[in-house]
C-alpha cells in the first residue's frame, strides 16, 4: 500500500488526484514539515531536515500571503537572508524579480498585487536559493483561467532554466499532463499511487491541451486510472 515513487534530478513529476487524497500531506512530508508515519523517505539520500538545512528545497503554497510588510523585492530577498549560506547572493533577488516579470512592481507590497502576481513572487522566492527540488502545492488553483494559462508557460520556462526537480501536486489532470514528464495518479483515502503515466510529448508544450491532440489521449489515460468516487 501507500506511495512508492522516486523523482530523478531535473525531472518534473506531477501528482494528480481528487481533493482529500493527501496531496498536500505528501508535499509536507517531503518538505519535512510532518513526519512520515511509516516507511522511508529520502531527499537527496538524506532526511528532509538535512535537505532543508542546506536550502535544497523550494516550496510554493497554494495561495501564498507572502510577508505582507515586505515589498516584492524584499520578499524575494528573504530566503537569502534566513539561514544564510556562503553562496547566498542578495543580488540574485533582483534578477529573479525581473525573471518573473515583476521588475516594475519590485517596490510594491503584496496587498497591491493581483493573485497571479503574488504567485509569481512566490515562485521567484522559491527559486532564488537555487533549490534542487521545487515542491508546488496547487500553485495555479487560486488564479483565474487566463492567468493560469500564462503562468503554466512561464512556469515551464523557469523550470527549463533552473533545471531543478519538481514535484507538483494538483487536482487539475489536464494541467498535470501539460506540465509534467510523469504523472502519478493518487487515489483512495488515504491516498496511494494507483498508476504512473509517462508524458513523452516534446517541449515546448502548448498552454492548452486541445492545441496538441496527442496530449489529449495522455490525459484520457490519466483519467482512466482515477478510481470512481
Amino acid at each position: 500500500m501507500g506511495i512508492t515513487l522516486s523523482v530523478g534530478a531535473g525531472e518534473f513529476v506531477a501528482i494528480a488526484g481528487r481533493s482529500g487524497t493527501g496531496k498536500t500531506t505528501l508535499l509536507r512530508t517531503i518538505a519535512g514539515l510532518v513526519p512520515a508515519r511509516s516507511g522511508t523517505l529520502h531527499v537527496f539520500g538524506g532526511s528532509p531536515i538535512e535537505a532543508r538545512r542546506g536550502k535544497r528545497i523550494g516550496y510554493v503554497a497554494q495561495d501564498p500571503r507572502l510577508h505582507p510588510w515586505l515589498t516584492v523585492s524584499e520578499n524575494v530577498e528573504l530566503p537569502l537572508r534566513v539561514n544564510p549560506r556562503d553562496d547566498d547572493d542578495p543580488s540574485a533577488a533582483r534578477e529573479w524579480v525581473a525573471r518573473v516579470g515583476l521588475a516594475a512592481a519590485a517596490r510594491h507590497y503584496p496587498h497591491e498585487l493581483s493573485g497571479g502576481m503574488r504567485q509569481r513572487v512566490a515562485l521567484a522566492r522559491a527559486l532564488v536559493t537555487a533549490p534542487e527540488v521545487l515542491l508546488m502545492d496547487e500553485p495555479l488553483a487560486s488564479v483565474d483561467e487566463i492567468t493560469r494559462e500564462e503562468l503554466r508557460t512561464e512556469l515551464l520556462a523557469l523550470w527549463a532554466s533552473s533545471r531543478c526537480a519538481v514535484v507538483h501536486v494538483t487536482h487539475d489532470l489536464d494541467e498535470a499532463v501539460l506540465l509534467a514528464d510523469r504523472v502519478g495518479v493518487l487515489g483512495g483515502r488515504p491516498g496511494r499511487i494507483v498508476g504512473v503515466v509517462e508524458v513523452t510529448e516534446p517541449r515546448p508544450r502548448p498552454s492548452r491541451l486541445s492545441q496538441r491532440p496527442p496530449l489529449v489521449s495522455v490525459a484520457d489515460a490519466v483519467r482512466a486510472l482515477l478510481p470512481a468516487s
Partner: protein
Amino acid sequence: MKGRTLADIAVAAVALLGMAVLLEVWTTALNVPGYLMPAPSAIAGRLVRDAAWFASEASVTFTEATAGFALGTGLAFAAASVMTLSRTIERTVFPIAILVKLTPIVAVAPLFTLWFGFGAAPKVAIAALITFFPMLVNAFVGLRSADPQELAFLETLGATRGEVFWRLRAPSALPYLFSAARVSANLALIGAVVAEWTGAEQGLGRVIFVANANLDLTALFGAVLVLAATGIVVNALVSALERRILHWHPITLTT
C-alpha cells in the same frame, strides 16, 4: 476624505461651542456660585492666564503615562513571547496576569506611593500596570496569528526559531498590538492621574486634587479640559504611528 474630516471637526466645534454658550447663559442667568459651577468664560480665562502652568503640569503627566505605557508594553510583549514557547509557561503566566487585571488600580495606587515615594516612579508603575493586560492578551494572540503557510515556507528554508520569531511572528503581532495600544494608551494616562491623586508634587492629577480641596473650580475644570486634550493628542499619536507602521495592513488602509 480630508474634506470630510474637516467637516467633522467643524460640526464637533459647533456642538462644543453651543454647549459652552448654554452653560454660560445658565450660570449667569441663575447666578450659580463659582465654587459650584464656574462660567465657561471664567474657565477659559483661567486657561489663558495660567497656560504655561497647565502645560507644564500636563507634560509631567504625559511623560509619566508615556514611560509607563512603554514599560507595560515592553513587559507584556516579553511575557507573551515567553508564553508562546510552552503551554506550561502559558498556564503559569496567565493566572498572574489575570490577577493583575482584576486588581483595582485605585486600591494599589496608594500602596505604590507608599513604596516608591511622591516622584514619578509610582505613576509610571501604575500606568505600566494598567497597560500590561490588554497588551499581553493581544501580543499573545498576535504572535500566534502568523500565517501557517508562511511559517511552513520559512521552515523549509531551515530558518531558526529566532529567525521565525523576528521575521514572521513579531511583525504578525503588530496589528494586534496597535489595537491594544488604542485602548491602553488612554488607560495609561488615566492611571498616571489616579496615581497622582494618592500623592504627588506635580501633574494634572495633583492639580485636580488640590483644586478640588480648595474649591478652586476654574483650575479643576481647566485641568480636566487639558487632560481631555492630552487624551486626544495621545490618540492622534497612536493613530499616526499606526498609519506609518501598518501601512501594509488591509484594515489600516480602509479606515
